């Protein structure tokens, strides 16, 4: 494990060095929103605030081209056509700088569907492999935060390659993985072991700010029991607008839609796209016949909550929730619908 110290005024030049060989994604404040954008040498030092949206887009873009295809005609016989396919899976080496522990933990949850199953998703795998994650441990948990309820914490190292904690005059950078260690070593930063105590203190202080943790261990079992309790789900869901804000903000939501766009016969060719989808949409799981097994939004909400607090405990190896408690779904919900409340109510009788 390597520990380095980075002085506050050295942040930009340190990132600039990384940017020479890698794409650097860093938080960028735009109006009220903070989101990850490519940071380039010469840009001001990045924002260190928690991003409005989780950085999962670095690994699963909101929309990506899976396959490009094009039809060509035989000039001698126009009816004779041939199809050419191309499936680019290369990924750009990237540093994901300044995400939070809840974000990094989210990637661990995402690995299960994309990497751990029977089929490994090559697009995901390539990006995951090419991305180095520098997590800034959290110092400002708010009302909507609940990382500690779901097995994490403001400074949880899970999913991160490097942890970064603010101390007086700069930051302590601490490698978590080998990848992180190699990265720190090549950075040429001075040792920061002497600042570790201060860093640890900051982390503990932060953990105290997270609202008190209730016992959620009964959640899977209670949700299972409530599966057919539609009155419960209708009551919990009635104010939901069925939009995708919660899902798209979420560091662990993984669902996508596949569609073909463009025209195989045209100059631009056809594209098979994978784009984010959200399970609160009335279109979600709608079958080609028009039938939808989850017709009502209460059913969709049951699916979302169960997915995070029940199904995942059976699919993810260590039985964890597929929720990192980042609280974005609560904070960004247009009607302030609170998933914590639903889970807690489900646990109650």
């Amino acid at each position: 494990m390597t520990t380095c110290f980075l002085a506050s005024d050295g942040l930009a030049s340190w990132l600039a060095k990384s940017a020479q060989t890698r794409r650097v994604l860093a938080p960028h404040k735009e109006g009220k929103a903070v989101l990850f954008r490519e940071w380039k040498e010469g840009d001001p030092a990045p924002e260190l605030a928690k991003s409005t949206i989780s950085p999962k887009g670095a690994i699963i873009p909101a929309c990506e081209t899976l396959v490009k295809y094009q039809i060509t005609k035989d000039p001698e016989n126009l009816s004779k056509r041939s199809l050419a396919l191309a499936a680019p899976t290369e990924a750009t080496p990237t540093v994901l700088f300044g995400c939070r522990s809840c974000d990094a933990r989210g990637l661990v949850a995402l690995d299960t569907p994309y990497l751990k199953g029977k089929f490994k998703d090559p697009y995901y795998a390539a990006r995951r492999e090419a991305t180095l994650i520098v997590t800034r441990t959290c110092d400002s948990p708010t009302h909507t935060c609940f990382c500690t309820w779901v097995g994490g914490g403001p400074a949880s190292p899970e999913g991160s390659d490097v942890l970064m904690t603010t101390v007086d005059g700069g930051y302590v950078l601490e490698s978590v993985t080998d990848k992180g260690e190699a990265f720190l070593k090549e950075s040429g930063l001075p040792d920061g072991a002497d600042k570790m105590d201060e860093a640890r203190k900051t982390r503990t202080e932060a953990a105290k700010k997270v609202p008190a943790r209730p016992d959620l261990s009964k959640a899977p079992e209670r949700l299972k029991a409530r599966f057919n309790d539609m009155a419960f789900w209708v009551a919990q869901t009635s104010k939901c607008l069925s939009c995708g804000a919660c899902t798209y903000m979420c560091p662990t939501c993984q669902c996508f839609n596949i569609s073909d766009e463009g025209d195989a016969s045209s100059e631009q060719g056809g594209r098979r796209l994978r784009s984010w989808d959200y399970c609160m949409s009335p279109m979600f799981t709608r079958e080609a016949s028009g039938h939808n097994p989850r017709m009502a939004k209460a059913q969709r909400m049951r699916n979302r909550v169960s997915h995070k607090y029940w199904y995942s405990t059976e699919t993810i190896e260590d039985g964890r929730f597929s929720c990192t408690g980042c609280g974005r779904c609560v904070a960004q919900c247009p009607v302030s619908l609170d998933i914590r409340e639903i889970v807690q109510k489900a646990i109650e009788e």
Partner: protein
Amino acid sequence: MKIGVFICHCGSNIAGTVDCVKVAKNAEAFPDVAYSTDNMYMCSEPGQDHIVEMVKKHDLDGVVVASCSPRMHEPTFRRAVERAGLNKYMFEMANIREHVSWIGKDKDANTNKASELVRMAVEKLRRNAPLFSKKFETIKKVLVVGAGVAGIQAALDCADAGLQVVLVEREPAIGGKMAKLDKTFPTVDCSSCILGPKMVDVSQHPNITLYTLSEVEKVSGYVGNFSVNIKRRAPYVDFSKCTGCGACMEKCPAKKTPDRFNEFMGPTTAINIPFPQAIPKKATINPQYCRKLTEGKCGICAKICPTGAINYEMKDEVITEEVGAIVAATGYDLMDWKSNYGEYGGGRYPDVITSLQYERLLSAAGPTGGHILRPSDGREPKKVAFICCVGSRDRSIGRPYCSGFCCMYTAKQAVLTKDHIPDSQSYVFYMDIRAPGKLYDEFTRRAIEEYGTEYIRGRVSAIQPDGKGQYIVRAADTLLGKPVEVAVDLVVLAVGVEGAKGSGKLAETLHISYDNFGFFLESHIKLRPVETNTAGVFLAGSCQGAKDIPSSVAQGSGAAAKVIGLLSKPKLESDPQISNVNIKRCVGCGKCVDVCPFQAITKENIRGEIKAQVIEAVCQGCGLCAATCPQGAIQLSHFTDNQILAEVNALCQC
């Protein structure tokens, strides 16, 4: 999908400025195009046969023809495609003649543009779906609007063919402008002698229902099934009792009533029969001048009427008729020369009159008993000037067109003037003599050679009274290159014609187009001259453009033939290019119902949910609903959002 593309050279019409071979070559690369070629004349029989052959040979699913305007040949090619065994709506046209080859000479640009238009057509065709017509019944009855010579001819021909005819006339009597004429060119035979028998036929024909004093107020429905509201103004005379004896006219005290029929050349009575041969020969009361109706006093006609036919209590009524077709034959009116020709006195000089007024002076049934007497002092004029093109070919007053028949009637009137007053001299001021009809030029030559009419080539600049009872006509003899002037006793203006007053309103009622001059727009000026763009509505006579009597009669018969052809079919097929509701997407908000101009959409309760539904026979296919529905639940077949988007995308891909 397999698409065949056929590029037409149209002789040199297209190929002259478009590289048709290259366009065909370019089309080979377009999506789904499996065959592409060019051809000298696609609309010719070999051209059409080639389509049929290639559809079969290449197993094509759809055809694009790039040639002239679809307004011209779309039906032709659709039939060809149908002969090839495809649904006729699996066809698109690219207009590379009217919109490309004829409007520019830059061959590169034209070729590129033509290719793009073909590309658009291909993209649209790829999203076409086979459409199928529905059959519906028709009402075997026709409405003829206007009972001038054209309307009369159309009505009689239809009635003779066994159709029921509803003939509507705005005036109290039928006959139109022709009934006002004294003699007709080029034979100089008596107008009422040749029109009179036809008018009598109308009144006696068992299949014709005549409504005079009536106007069409509202038309709804569609080809084969129109519903028409006819407003009939009260005549204040019970026609079933009136014998047309004319006793009322003799006693009526309102003797200063303006005489419409006589073009206001003299007064008449408030109750009158416009002329001796009038059909129907019934008296009617002009309510604006009748003392009983305006002041509540009088009632003389009621007292005098031997059959008690007068009824002051009569009210206007609205009659509803159901018909399968409509013929518009509303004729013409003279343009408003008074507000446009101040230099001719603008109506201030009593002896400057219109040619139609002059006809009434010539007519034995007119206000002067057939003696030419000038209005100011009742003297017989010895020198008469005729001025042509007053309100014709005059761009400055917005009348660029030739009124067509003025040259001929002016020559006729000059001839008649000499007949009436042998010691008279006529002067005709003209720009060009237009006499292209059968025996027409011979006639104008006769006016000059045998009747000594003086023809002066030049537009008249001004007419000025000389203060001594004559009028100085100031013109130029452009052949001589000198200004000339002549003092005359009477000036007759050959006033230009325009669509009859109120024709615009009628056009809106009938959903047909009209031009700035009130003439109705035909479907195609050469090939579909009696059809309009509204199915089931036809045109006859001058309402379509200035016409003389022979042409009006011919067009009246032409329109009748079209009506007879249309209604002879047992059933008609509806156009399947209409709106369709995707009931899954429809949320039942009814915005389409609110905007539909034809009330063709209703709200229906389908399995407990309100959904929009299109009445197929009523929908006209305008697509307003499709542009209104926010979720795209209602789509116009053949012009769906995706089809138009495909055309946009074919052009704009940045």
